């Protein structure tokens, strides 16, 4: 009994310490850059590395998931009392409400989060961050702020791209199989459309992008040790950002949809 209590107490203490450290880290990150010109150049580079480089992954995954959702909807809601266009409608709403925001960001937490944590972690263990600090550069701001802003700028593009590609994936299934006609699928896509769902998805993506970049950067920035620790930090970055994405998914859904 004592050991369970002790373990719980240690867990709570460790969590609060990490939250405190994260807040101090974010205080360093969100400050005026030493040189705006350098900041804008780095932000452009991060948009390319984190955003544009993710396009193939987003397109491929969205295309296939859109197709799968359409097939599964057709199988599961096949009933004489449910109109056939409901397949298109359900596919659209699943994509807009959950897939192209939450699930997409969970996937990007794996790709972008691990990349950021390992990049910054490697810089820490090879003393590159110490070198920046010694020179008088605010290393947290220099390294992390452009990533946060770059990904924040580009995530809506990836989100909209995912929405569009997923729906195209469903359309391909309608076009090339006989499970639903294209006209009914397209009618379903247009039926009872709620514009707010698109904004809801975009707002979630913006919040999740900040979670992905800051949590991954935080894990990488405080790596202590060698290459094994960098690997562990990369794993922690993905796990912690995924958990936070799911937590904030619930909070944002409650706030924005009810």
């Amino acid at each position, binding site marked *: 009994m004592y050991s369970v209590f002790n373990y719980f107490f240690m867990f709570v203490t460790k969590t609060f310490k990490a939250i405190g450290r994260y807040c101090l880290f974010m205080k360093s990150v969100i400050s005026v850059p030493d040189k705006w010109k350098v900041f804008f150049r780095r932000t452009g580079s991060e948009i390319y590395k984190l955003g544009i480089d993710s396009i193939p992954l987003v397109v491929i995954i969205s295309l296939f998931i859109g197709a799968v959702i359409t097939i599964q909807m057709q199988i599961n809601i096949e009933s004489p009392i449910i109109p056939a266009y409901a397949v298109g409608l359900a596919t659209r709403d699943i994509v807009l409400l959950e897939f192209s925001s939450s699930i997409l960001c969970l996937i990007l937490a794996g790709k972008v989060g691990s990349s950021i944590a390992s990049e910054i972690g490697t810089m820490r263990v090879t*003393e590159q961050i110490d070198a920046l600090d*010694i020179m008088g550069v605010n290393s947290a701001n220099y390294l992390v702020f452009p990533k946060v802003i770059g990904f924040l700028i580009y995530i809506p593009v990836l989100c909209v791209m995912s929405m569009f590609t997923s729906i195209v994936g469903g359309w391909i299934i309608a076009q090339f199989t006989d499970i639903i006609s294209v006209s009914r699928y397209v009618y379903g896509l247009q039926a009872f459309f709620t514009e707010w769902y698109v904004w809801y998805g975009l707002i979630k993506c913006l919040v999740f992008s900040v979670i992905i970049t800051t949590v991954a950067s935080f894990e990488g920035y405080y790596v202590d040790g060698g290459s094994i620790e960098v690997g562990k930090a990369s794993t922690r970055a993905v796990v912690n950002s995924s958990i936070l994405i799911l937590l904030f998914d619930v909070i944002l859904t409650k706030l924005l949809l009810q």
Partner: protein
Amino acid sequence: MIEVKNVTKAFDGKTVLHDVSCTFDTGKTNLIIGQSGSGKTVLMKSIVGLVRPDVGHIFFDGRDRLTMSGKQIKELRKEIGMLFQGSALFDSETVMANVMFPLVMFSDMSHAEMVDRANFCLERVNLKGQGNKYPSEISGGMQKRVAIARAIALNPKYLFCDEPNSGLDPKTSILIDELLSDITHEYNITTIINTHDMNSVLGIGENIVFLNRGHVDWIGNMDQLASSTNESLIDFVFATKLFREVRDYQLAHRN
């Protein structure tokens, strides 16, 4: 000149530096030597500001770093160049971009002026024409020289080198030592080198601080080493048969 006064530092209750006091002169190559775990790295990190001492003062030409405001520390750091053990070059940037980095961040030079200055620094470390390569494309010795070029780009008043010869062959080590010594004298820099390399100690040790278990055990220069009666120092510096023979020769030659 850098003065360290009564610096003490402990980690988790274990005292690593005990009341350390020493002076590092301007225009000289100042060496911190000692066995592994003697506190050399902690002393250097305390001086540059990566570690905050529990007690004591560190004066940079009369300015106490430990009582400076954040803004003053930032200004001081622009006067500091540092060469790390692993060079710490930015992997994703070219050699030229690495050397230009401090200029881009802290100078008001035009791009052309920055390129000129970076080329001058690269030329000074005998790396002319290597600017377009990436750190991964050059040897360890060349990486160290790029790091030196980056460290001197802003004309620092203080240069810190953490084991500059680690991982280098003896010939390259001597080249790096000579380069550091030349730069120190040429630009009148206060250079502090943390080293294990006895060739460096005997070759460029104009002011040597010997740390033993966190205490300053001996202060002197390379000419005073052989005649020292400090047993810990003699055991450490003249540990190999070759170096013992060198010492015997020096003593005999002097007498």
